[in-house]
């Protein structure tokens, strides 16, 4: 009774309001959600949100500083680069590339990895052994260097980057899904499904997949951040997306030469990467704690 009264009084007092807001922020990933949400909106509607063309420079406004620095103007809130292209517009269009590359790569990687894990765990035997050795081999490959070789033989392109990142991201999922399936398939309900005449495909799709989907979600969210950094890195080295496409990595590479005179060209894209990756990592941590705390060792 006393506890209830205390709770009621807490609920009404300003301190209680503060505590409730605090708890709400701790319980739900509000800030990461806002960051990712506004990025997604900005990326999708970049064409409507900004009056500038991300590839077309205004030579009369070259290297304009951000609005709050020196003689910066609000026409270009985050300034312009060396050929007078608006930084904010390029950041938004860059978000489009980053999110798309990471999104497609992680989807392809996740689907392949999940399928491989399901198969290896459920079928077992030679299939399992083969797939798992492949996973071992895969996680031993230095992917950045492999990417360099592909960049030389095929040349920089968006699809090359997506393909490479997808290739690099299936193995972790496969291993974890397999581990889950190995223990799940010994359960009674799987045996019952078999008795009831369910086919192997049906058992995998209807009875096992829903049980491992939480593992897949956690691994996927935790993976996106590192894929965004990887894409930016390839672009930074000049071996990723073609230089004409505005991406965060290419912007940093361009700004690197003007670090002394126009720091904002290199600094803002990096901050965008940092915010996005942190948001995805937080979201992943949250999903993990929510869905499967046992996966804590992963991150």
């Amino acid at each position: 009774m006393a506890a209830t009264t205390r709770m009621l009084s807490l609920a009404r007092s300003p301190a209680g309001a503060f505590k409730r807001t605090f708890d709400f922020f701790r319980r739900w990933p509000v800030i990461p959600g806002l960051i990712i949400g506004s990025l997604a909106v900005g990326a999708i509607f970049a064409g409507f949100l900004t009056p500038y063309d991300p590839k077309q420079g205004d030579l009369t406004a070259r290297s304009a500083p951000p609005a709050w620095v020196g003689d910066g103007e609000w026409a270009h809130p985050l300034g312009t680069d060396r050929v007078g292209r608006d930084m904010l517009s390029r950041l938004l269009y860059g978000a489009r590339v980053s999110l798309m590359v990471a999104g497609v790569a992680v989807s392809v990687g996740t689907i392949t990895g999940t399928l491989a894990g399901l198969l290896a765990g459920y079928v077992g035997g030679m299939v399992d052994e083969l797939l798992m050795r492949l996973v071992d081999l895969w996680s031993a490959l230095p992917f950045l260097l492999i990417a360099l070789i592909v960049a030389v033989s095929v040349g920089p392109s968006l699809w090359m980057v997506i393909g490479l990142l997808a290739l690099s991201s299936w193995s972790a999922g496969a291993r974890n899904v397999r581990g889950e399936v190995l223990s799940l398939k010994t359960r009674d309900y799987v045996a019952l499904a078999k008795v009831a005449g369910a086919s192997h495909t049906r058992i995998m799709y209807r009875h096992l997949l829903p049980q491992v989907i939480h593992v897949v979600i956690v691994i996927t969210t935790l993976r996106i951040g590192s894929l965004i950094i990887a894409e930016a890195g390839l672009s930074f080295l000049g071996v990723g997306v073609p230089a004409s496409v505005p991406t965060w990595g290419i912007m940093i590479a361009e700004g690197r030469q003007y670090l002394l005179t126009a720091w904002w060209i290199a600094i803002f894209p990096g901050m965008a990467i940092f915010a996005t990756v942190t948001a995805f990592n937080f979201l992943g941590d949250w999903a993990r704690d929510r869905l499967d705390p046992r996966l804590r060792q992963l991150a």
Partner: protein
Amino acid sequence: MRRFLIRRAVFSILTLWGVTILVFVLSRLGPDPLLVYVRDATYGISPETIAALKEKWGLDRPLVVQYVKWVGALLRGDLGESVGAQRSVVLIISEKVPATAQLAAIAWVIATVPGVALGVLSAVKRGSVWDYTARAIALIGQATPPFWLALVMILVFSVQLDWLPSATRGDAQDPFFTRLRHYIMPALVLALGPWAAYMRLTRSSMLEVLDTEFVKLARAKGVGNTVILWKHALRNALIQPLTVSAAVLASFIAGAVFVETVFAWPGIGRLAVQATLDNDFPILAGVVLMFGVGYLALNFLADLAYAVVDPRIRYS
């Protein structure tokens, strides 16, 4: 133990073989195999020259023959000749190894010792200022692109504060401490990612171990806190960070490429990027294989360490 080591050794060799196949297949993936040797392979070169060049690198032969010849040469320790410099790739790479090895060794120490120590501290003093600070730095370490962090550090410590040199390894004639200053920023940037990984992993597995029955028993028996932490708990908690050493090492390789590019460090990472921009396949393949060998060797060592720390591995 012996069987375990033999299995790992065989697997390392198979992996290396897989890497050669992958490197070869990827290098022939493009529209024109000449592209991996010459930039703009079709531009302004006469058909006779193209034919002569293809013959020179054996590109006119069937793919299988090309691969077998290439691997045969590799087995004899012959990585071919660089296209640009026209010198032996083995020589070029061996000139660049020391710079990268030194940098990586320093970064390795910076990453592991404070990483594990802070992980322990963070777990023991859970919820303290130490814990939050360490976790915040780890968070930054995992979300910051290394090449951007390098630029920010140059901007702050070289341009604004003028404390540290912004690039290169320094002159060989310089006094020791002047040269040492060149190592500080590259080593820190290279170490941050692995440091964060070690810290987070040590923290989480330490928390888990401290919660186990045998630690409680040790406490009940009256074993001192120091002994419990460093002998009972840490030894078990180290298994987890050791198993991911492979991934940490991989991030070192990627990190070296970026750090050396930004800090103009005369090492293998920068050599690889330069070879990519110059379409110099022999050098690039040499670097990839060298990293592959180094990586597998270190991985093997990690497995050994793993067996030493965890007796269960030895006897299974």
